[in-house]
């Protein structure tokens, strides 16, 4: 008989009998989980389900990018060349470094080294904030050049690039307007990514505070590990954003 109820592991935590109501090992072990391992796997499973919804969310943006890049390719090429490769590449390296320290933080929690855990979480945060700082510099440059889509958008650099010292092919006025589509997607995608980073930095500060109290250095790793999954996911989004937005056509034909 494949009856889940009959086959369920008999309950050992009978809350009605105080004598039998004891915690297995960790105070964080919830009663509705039979074992710590089961609780841990359930947490990882739930975190991944959340990340899959995030894949679908960013996936919609990536799909919009795919379509418009094909429709308005000339506009996408010249507006992509407006982005700074040194800043973008540096930010990629910074984000990878931040992710590396996050991975080390999970390790430090697993081997129960509180000081190391706090140090690695601080480094993760510092590199995350550095990424946002560079992003601010990039956004500010777009603001000054009126390259933010909307009523004040300026197409002069795209209609008459030679007057601005650019070696691009001049665009017809209607195609030049389509550069707004690129910048709209650029701000939507990097902006949503940056929002995830800001939320992540907020969570990191909260986790730092708890880690400093020793909450994650006695065998309870789940919050650190699951936040790590989130942080690495945000890294992965950037690993795709960087080549797709910054490197469309950097090779002079």
């Amino acid at each position, binding site marked *: *008989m*494949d*009856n*889940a109820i*009959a*086959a*369920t*592991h*008999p*309950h050992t935590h*009978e809350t009605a009998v105080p004598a039998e109501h004891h915690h297995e090992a960790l105070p964080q072990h919830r009663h509705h989980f*039979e*074992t710590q*391992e*089961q609780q*841990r*796997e359930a947490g*990882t*499973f739930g975190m*991944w*389900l959340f*990340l*899959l919804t995030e*894949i*679908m969310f960013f*996936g919609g943006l990536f*799909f919009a990018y*795919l379509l418009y890049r094909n429709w308005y390719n000339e506009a996408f090429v010249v507006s992509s060349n407006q982005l700074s*490769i040194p800043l973008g*590449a540096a930010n*990629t*390296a910074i984000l*990878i*470094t931040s*992710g*590396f320290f*996050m*991975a*080390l933080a*999970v*390790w430090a929690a*697993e*081997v129960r080294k509180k000081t190391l855990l706090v140090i690695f979480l601080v480094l993760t945060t510092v590199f995350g904030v550095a990424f946002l700082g560079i992003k601010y510099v990039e956004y500010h440059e777009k603001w000054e050049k009126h390259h933010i889509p909307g009523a004040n958008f300026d197409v002069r650099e795209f209609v008459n690039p030679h007057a601005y010292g650019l070696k691009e092919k001049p665009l017809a006025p209607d195609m030049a307007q389509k550069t707004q589509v690129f910048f709209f997607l650029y701000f939507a995608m990097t902006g949503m990514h940056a929002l995830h980073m800001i939320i992540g930095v907020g969570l990191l500060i909260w986790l730092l505070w708890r880690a400093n109290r020793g909450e994650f250095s006695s065998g309870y790793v789940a919050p650190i*590990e699951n936040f*790590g*999954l989130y942080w*690495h*996911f945000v*890294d*992965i989004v950037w*690993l*795709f954003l*960087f*080549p*797709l937005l910054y*490197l*469309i056509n*950097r*090779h*002079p034909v």
Partner: protein
Amino acid sequence: MAAAPLAEGKEENMTEFHDPSNVVNPEHADHHIVTPAVYGMVFAALLVGTAITVGAAYVNLGILNPVVALAIACTKAVIVILFFMHVKYQSKLVKLTVISGFFTFIVLITMTLTDYISRAWGLW
């Protein structure tokens, strides 16, 4: 054992094989702690991948430029998922969840692209 009324000798044996509440799952026993050395290698691989991406963008490969860029990005993403996100060391449940998520995403992209490509069929 304070087993449920239905459980007699036979059912007790069955829990070994069915384990529907995921208690004696043998995968739980081999919890793996990834070492800093592995993380270091992954870190180096990701930085090298970034350098290759930037370098490849300056070479004119025609239609292959975006393909190469995406291939490198996908490789890096898989490395991050397997090692930084520990999927290589997770249970089958978690592995299947991750794979099915990406599979569903690819299905959605394919179906939407099919629609866009076929709408103006023959007009280009």
